């Protein structure tokens, strides 16, 4: 028997290290011989820390929400040959996991990311071997073309086309770059892939490099992902030792090596020309295209940039064939997509499903529905470049075209679920605040335009909105869309445009009725005490920081609206539900 503990960033945050330490010391204390291994994120973050017990007959028993004490019970129980029912994964959660189709995440949460032999045992590095020994570079590009694989970073540009452009570009020196600068707030797919299965990214880059005729690879990783950098460094070193990276791979004349460049924290560096500037040690500012990176990229040499998830799909496609990948999905979106499901959803985590599934399948199927069974209001897709899709469009297919038609985008895979307690104007303000802070400042529409939009949104949420503000927002948004320099600037107004499109009544409520129905905008909320429910316990008066509540013991209390600072403390402390929020 052996133990495998899920140690992605989320598992560690939930306490996996403590569980691991407890297991190791308990095993030593009992004089047992049970190895304790590590794996990446399986995607069920709401159940972390997760521990798999692999029995001697190969059977795998999954335990969830394991604590430092629980692991001792589990070990005792397993040693005696019995399942520890208390922490066993619930059947419906197991079913949720099995209902997914895992290609990019095929090894995540299963293999040890720190041991290349685990990856090889799962058929790893067979794809590049096949390429080098049996296929011409043009044939590799053809397979990717047949598969219909499109860029998973958000834009959905056909991968084969980029590879082909880089292949046909003039010049001997070409760079294969992996964009792991996952900056969208609310998205963590790429982190999970690198932390859980770094070799799949390395192999995907190898295949790409072979097809394009490149000998040097760079992975640009966010500095905020220290664990991903450690695991990837380790995997690169092991791949070098095994001869998968370096000179004359598989005895051929194909040579390729990879190095890591840690980003320094700038959202705009997810844009490919900004990423190249950052790689060159400059401020990460985008430039006009053309020339495209495939013609003039890193150090003016032809460069191909793909996202982590795109590369992770490549080895599977080469081994299984382009047709098998293309068999999944819709006419214009093939294969699967990984989503980071978060927000007001019951079971947050990583989800991989075939293209063409409905948004409903993700939120109510794998996600298990809305927290506290509240009413579903909208889902935000595509982060700061995307938009909010309202409840009435929940049956929209997950497909590049149909999602774009709603005003949102497929994006890199962030899916933030919102319920009736989320204010859509506040949401739009949140995203504009983000893009405004992250704007690189190079072009005026983005630098000043997002700032002006943020000012308008802020005043609306503060109850100072004016007649004409919605139209002004729309006008500004369309100007920025048509005139900003890079893709990020051009899409920055999307969160505002989609919320106005689907939730215009909320904007109007804020401006004309001074009301925030979700009770999120503090300035628009009023607190009062319902006399018939108040028992006169004085708790609210004692806790009020402004001294705005008056009343005698055992008599109903009253809030003085002139003194009230709208902190909501009274509502939090009241045990009788007597505080009314409007």
């Amino acid at each position, binding site marked *: 028997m052996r133990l495998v503990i899920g140690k992605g*960033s*989320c598992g*560690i*945050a*939930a306490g996996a290290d403590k569980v691991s330490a407890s297991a190791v010391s308990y095993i030593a204390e009992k004089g047992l011989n049970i190895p304790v291994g590590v794996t990446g994120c399986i995607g069920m*973050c*709401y159940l*972390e820390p997760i521990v798999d017990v692999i029995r001697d007959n190969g059977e795998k028993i999954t335990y969830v929400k394991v604590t430092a004490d629980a692991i001792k019970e589990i070990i005792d129980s397993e040693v005696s040959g019995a399942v520890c029912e208390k922490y066993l994964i619930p059947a419906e959660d197991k079913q949720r996991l099995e209902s997914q189709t895992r290609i990019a995440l095929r090894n995540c949460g299963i293999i040890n990311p720190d041991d290349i032999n685990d990856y090889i045992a799962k058929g790893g590095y067979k794809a590049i071997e096949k390429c080098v020994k049996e296929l011409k570079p043009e044939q590799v590009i053809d397979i990717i073309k047949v598969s219909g694989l499109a860029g998973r970073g958000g834009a959905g540009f056909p991968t084969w086309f980029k590879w082909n452009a880089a292949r046909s570009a003039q010049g001997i020196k070409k760079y294969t770059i992996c964009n792991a600068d*996952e*900056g*969208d*707030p*609310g*998205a*963590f797919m790429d*982190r999970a892939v690198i932390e859980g299965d770094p070799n799949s990214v390395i192999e995907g880059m190898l295949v790409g490099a072979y097809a394009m005729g490149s000998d040097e690879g760079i992975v640009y990783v966010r*500095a*905020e*992902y*220290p664990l991903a950098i450690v695991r990837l460094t380790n995997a690169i070193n092991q791949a070098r030792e095994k001869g998968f990276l370096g000179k004359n791979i598989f005895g051929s004349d194909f040579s390729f090596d990879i190095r890591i*460049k*840690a*980003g*320094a*924290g*700038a*959202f705009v560096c997810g844009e490919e020309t900004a990423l190249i500037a*950052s*790689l*060159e*040690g*400059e*401020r*990460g500012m985008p430039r006009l295209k053309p020339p495209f990176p495939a013609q003039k990229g890193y*150090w003016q040499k032809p460069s191909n940039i793909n996202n982590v998830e795109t590369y992770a799909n490549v080895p599977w496609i080469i081994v299984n064939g382009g047709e098998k990948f293309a068999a999944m999905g819709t006419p214009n979106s093939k294969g699967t997509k990984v989503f*980071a*499901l*978060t*927000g*007001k959803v019951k079971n*947050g*985590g990583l989800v991989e499903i075939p293209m063409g599934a409905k948004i409903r399948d993700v939120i109510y199927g794998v996600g298990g529905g809305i927290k506290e069974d509240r009413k579903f209001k909208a889902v*935000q897709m595509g*982060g700061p470049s995307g938009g909010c899709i309202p409840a009435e469009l929940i049956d929209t297919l997950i497909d590049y075209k149909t999602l774009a038609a709603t005003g949102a985008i497929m994006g890199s895979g*962030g899916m*933030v679920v*919102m319920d009736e307690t*989320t204010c859509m104007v506040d*949401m739009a303000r*949140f*995203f504009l605040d*983000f893009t405004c802070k*992250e704007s*690189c400042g190079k072009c005026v529409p983005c630098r000043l335009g997002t700032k002006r939009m943020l000012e308008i949104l802020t005043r609306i949420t503060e109850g100072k909105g004016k007649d004409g503000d919605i139209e002004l927002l729309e006008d500004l948004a369309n100007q920025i869309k048509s005139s900003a320099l890079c893709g990020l600037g051009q899409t920055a107004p999307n969160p505002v445009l989609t919320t106005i499109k689907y939730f215009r009544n909320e904007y109007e409520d804020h401006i004309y009725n001074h009301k925030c129905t979700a009770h999120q905008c503090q300035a628009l909320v009023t607190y009062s005490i319902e006399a018939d429910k108040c028992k006169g316990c004085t708790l609210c008066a004692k806790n009020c920081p402004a001294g705005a509540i008056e009343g005698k013991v055992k008599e109903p209390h009253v809030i003085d609206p002139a003194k009230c600072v709208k902190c909501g403390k009274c509502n939090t402390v009241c045990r009788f539900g007597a505080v009314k929020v409007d």
Partner: protein
Amino acid sequence: MSEICKCAEAEAEVLKKDGIDTSLLEPTLKEYASVKGSLITILQHAQDIYGYLPVELLNYIALRTGIKAAKVLGVATFYAQFRLEPIGKYLIMICQGTACHVNGSEAVQATIEEYLEIKDGQTTPDGLFSIKSVACLGCCSLSPVMMINGEAYGTLTPDKAKQILADIKAKEAESK
């Protein structure tokens, strides 16, 4: 440019008075000073060594690499990772990503700011705590999240966050 010129020597002397020993940066400069495109890497190493990047150090790096001082400052101020001021013993990174925002991270941050009596980006006068709000820590399913010196704390409420800081304060007071 890797040989030390007079100006760089003078700058090193100034830094020494502030307790910054430039010789610690020597291995990094040896490896990267003449490799083009390495400025960000050098700054990252320097910050790892000294905890922050004082302007004099940026000048020193400019002199040693031959990159214009204005450009070094430009790069150091462009990226969120670089700090030009020293930070406290405990760096509290409060996540303000979408998932955390939806689950109430603004209230958590307001409570922490009130409790420590400092704002985002500031350090307490006793040098114990610094607050920095960040875009996304990637632990969205545990939102709202904060990270203190690399350790993540999830599913926070304002009270829970305050308790965590109070515990650290108590521990520090005890060790004194």
